[in-house]
């Protein structure tokens, strides 16, 4: 262990900071690895709420105050449209950044963040947490082993966010969050797809935004000649299901279980596949967030490479952008003819923005 704990600031004290990052920070603080020194949120009550967990941290409402306090690392967990300006400002001030997903509202913004990190010789890590799931790592290693043969087809269904304890309506304010389920949840799914299957591309995309943010999105992607259908919804809850069908096997996962996947494949007796997942001591989401923070702390100390850098995160964000660029209206089949006509008009207005 280093002599000095890493000084950490939290920028954006909403539900993600409170529910996901704070337990990891508290665990590493107990181990003497980090010291939370600043809590920043435009809503002073939110910063004060987290101060109950980190009483020695200074609570503030202005980002400039964070820079003045001089943390080593900032966790940026604010609304997506603020990520670029806040992260770049912190990087320019010499602060390493772990930015929540999506890394930014656009790849152009993300590129500016990456450039700021390079200019300042600081790290830009991105909170694509599922890369820390032993289950997702196992899928990665199984696919990379080549034992399953080529991917033939895949279907992914994920729904979520119905009971997420948002502390504000920012996730539904377009100037703060310029997208819906695709930008929020889809960026995780597309990141996994791009990690498991480099070269994945978007073939078609539909969503149900009618002047606002999509609640249901359907992307058709291609991996070689295999078609991958991704269906995302925060309109209706359904059990998540990833079904990846290969030449010689099948993998089924629910998308949120950090530990378990179902694998239908009889390994030959001489199989020499090594699974890195076996070595990851994570059993829960909290464990995964702790593993993510440990990775970032180790990377800041020069002891380990980042698992997910800003550059890594740009791949999934560019797939999201490609979806939005090619979007068409996902028909709601219960609409009457007059509703469908109006919906088409409203959907095209959004594209024109």
């Amino acid at each position: 262990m280093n002599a000095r704990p890493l000084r950490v600031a939290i920028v954006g004290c909403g539900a993600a900071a409170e529910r996901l990052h704070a337990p990891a920070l508290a665990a590493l603080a107990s181990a003497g690895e980090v010291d939370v020194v600043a809590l920043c949120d435009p809503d002073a009550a939110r910063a004060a709420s987290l101060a109950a967990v980190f009483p020695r941290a200074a609570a503030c409402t202005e980002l400039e105050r964070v820079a003045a306090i001089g943390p080593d690392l900032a966790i940026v967990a604010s609304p997506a449209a603020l990520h670029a300006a806040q992260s770049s400002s912190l990087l320019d001030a010499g602060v390493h950044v772990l930015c929540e997903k999506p890394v930014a509202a656009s790849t152009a913004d993300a590129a500016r963040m990456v450039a700021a990190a390079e200019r300042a010789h600081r790290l830009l890590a991105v909170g694509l947490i599922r890369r820390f799931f032993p289950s997702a790592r196992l899928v990665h290693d199984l696919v990379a082993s080549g034992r399953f043969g080529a991917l033939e087809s895949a279907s992914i269904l994920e729904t979520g966010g119905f009971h997420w304890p948002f502390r504000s309506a920012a996730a539904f304010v377009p100037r703060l969050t310029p997208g819906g389920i695709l930008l929020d949840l889809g960026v995780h799914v597309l990141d996994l797809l791009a990690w498991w299957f480099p070269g994945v591309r978007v073939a078609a995309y539909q969503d149900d935004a009618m002047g606002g943010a999509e609640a249901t999105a359907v992307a058709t992607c291609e991996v070689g000649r295999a078609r991958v259908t991704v269906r995302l919804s925060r309109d209706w809850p359904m059990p998540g299901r990833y079904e990846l069908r290969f030449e010689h096997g099948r993998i089924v996962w629910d998308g949120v279980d950090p530990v378990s996947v179902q694998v239908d494949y009889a390994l030959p007796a001489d199989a020499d596949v090594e699974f890195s997942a076996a070595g990851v001591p994570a059993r829960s989401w909290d464990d995964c967030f702790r593993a993510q923070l440990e990775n970032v702390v180790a990377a800041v100390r020069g002891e380990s490479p980042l698992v997910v850098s800003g550059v890594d995160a740009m791949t999934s964000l560019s797939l999201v952008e490609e979806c939005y660029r090619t979007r068409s209206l996902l028909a709601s089949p219960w609409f009457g003819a007059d509703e469908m006509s109006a919906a088409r008009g409203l959907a095209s207005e959004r594209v024109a923005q």
Partner: protein
Amino acid sequence: MKLAILGANGFVGSRAVEQFHLTGAFDVRPIVRRPAAMARAARFNLDCRLADALDAPQLEEAFRGCDALLHLATGDPRTITGSVRPAFEAATRAGLRRIVYISSASVHGQAPEPGTVEETPLHRRHLIAYNNAKVEAEREWQRLQRRGGPEVVVLRPAVVFGPRSRWVASCADDLLAGRAYLIEGGRGVCNTIYVDNLLHAVRLALTVPQAAGGTFFVGDRERITWLEFYRPIARALGVDPDSIAMLDRVPEFRPGVRERLQSLKSTSAVQFALRRTPARLKRSVKAAIEGWRAPAAAPIASRRAAGPAPTLEMALLHRCAWQLPWTKAAATLGYEPIVPTAEGMRRSIEWLRFAGYPVQ
């Protein structure tokens, strides 16, 4: 007309936002309690507000600038009864002219006596706390209206079905899980109303002058049985309708102590007393009620690991022998269903496909 929709994330509320906005019927303002509940309304560029249905000042702020209110907020019995007065007071202060309250035909029970009409006297001796809470809520609306303020129209639908309806989704879930059942051969009357028919009635209730102060049953034109309701959903999912469990016997349901206490708690007299009871005492009483384990009302589910688990609500519904008449709505509002039940079912099944159910 600018219409505030309280409870805009529910099944009827979501459809009301969609349909009224897209058809231009009303300028809608969705109101929900939690940010996560904004997801469906956020598909549109609307002025969606956050407000707790029990908080009059929050509601007044959310209602300001609107002309009318569609009250769809629901929840536990306390929320059902407790959300009437704040909404009425907030609507009065915000200058709203009319409120349409979606009550329920279950104020007459799930299996109303043949001959039941809107004027049939209500009582609060139902075995289901929800029914009693809806009775209490209707009585509260009646009391409040006498003081003046916004006009109130009460609609009493029964089995409202359509996209995102629990009747359709639960039926599909149960069929797929092998848990679906019908009592007495599924011959009981299923008092359906397709959601678009209910919204058609809402439009009329908001705009027809002589609707003010009235209470109306609303329903579909067709008379169907519960078997006829389940059958097309089963077929769409590839489940043989003949495989649905037919139950001749169901457990004797008696109201448990907890249910009786909850019913009592939702009365206006007890609500009045509770407002003057110290919070600590209320917490102790609540913990005692929730900790109560009623030994007599255990359904079959507690004795069987899987398979049908009949509930009191379904046991009563499946024995219904009376199609609730909407003749009063027809005469006063000019209400006529605009979507046949079969078409409503077709659209509901298309929604199941949209939501990711394995529709064949």
